[in-house]
C-alpha cells in the first residue's frame, strides 16, 4: 500500500470520521476511537472506504480493531486487495 493509499484513508476519515481531533495531528498509529470515532461513524467510514477502494469488508473484519487506526485500516485494505489480485 502506498503513500497515496494512506492519504486517501486520511481524506475519507476527514469526510466521514467526524473525529473530535484534527486528523493532521494524528499519526498512522493513533487510536481513532480515542480520537472520537463513534461506532456509527465507523460504519459510514467503512462504506466510504469500500466505495473508494472497490472492496467489501467481510464479516470477519467487522470489528473495532479493523478501524482502530489508519495503519489498521491500511493493513485490512492491503489484505483485501491481495485477496482480489
Amino acid at each position, binding site marked *: 500500500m502506498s503513500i497515496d493509499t494512506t492519504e486517501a484513508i486520511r481524506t475519507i476519515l476527514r469526510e466521514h470520521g467526524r473525529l473530535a481531533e484534527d486528523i493532521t495531528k494524528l499519526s498512522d498509529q493513533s487510536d481513532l476511537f480515542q480520537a472520537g470515532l*463513534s*461506532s*456509527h461513524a465507523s*460504519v*459510514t467510514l467503512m*462504506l466510504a472506504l469500500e*466505495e473508494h477502494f472497490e472492496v467489501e469488508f467481510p*464479516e470477519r473484519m*467487522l*470489528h473495532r480493531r479493523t478501524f482502530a487506526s489508519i495503519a489498521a485500516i491500511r493493513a485490512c485494505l492491503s489484505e483485501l486487495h491481495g485477496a482480489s489480485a
Partner: protein
Amino acid sequence: MYVGVDVVSVNEVSRSLERFGERYVRRVFTPGEAAYCRAATGRVAAERFAARFAAKEATLKALRPDTTAIDWRSIEVRRHASGWCDVVLHGEAAALAARQGIESLALSMSHDAGCATAVVVAQVVARTSNRES
C-alpha cells in the same frame, strides 16, 4: 448482569441514508428492521433506523465482545404488535452471548431532540459452584 447504552444522532443517520442509501441499510439492518423503518418516511424513518442502530451498539456493549467480529445484522430489533421491542441474536452474536452466560436481554429505546438512544440489560445465568459446602 451487564448493561449497555448508546446514543446516535438522527441527522448522522439521515446523512448516511442519503449518501449510501440501500448499501447502508443492507450492511447494517435486517430485512425485517428495514421494512419497519421504511414503513415511515423522511425524519420518522431516520429516527427508527437511528434507534435501532443505538440498540445494536448498546447490545454489543452488554455482550462485552473480546476479539469476536460481530455483523451488525446478527443483532436484530424485533417489534411486537403491542409496540414493545426485543433484541434477537443470530450467528456470532448469539454464540458470544452463550459464551458470556447471557440468558436474556431487555431493551428500551427512545428518540427526541435529534438523538436516538437505547439501553440493553443482559441477564447472566448464575454460575454454579463446583465446591462442596
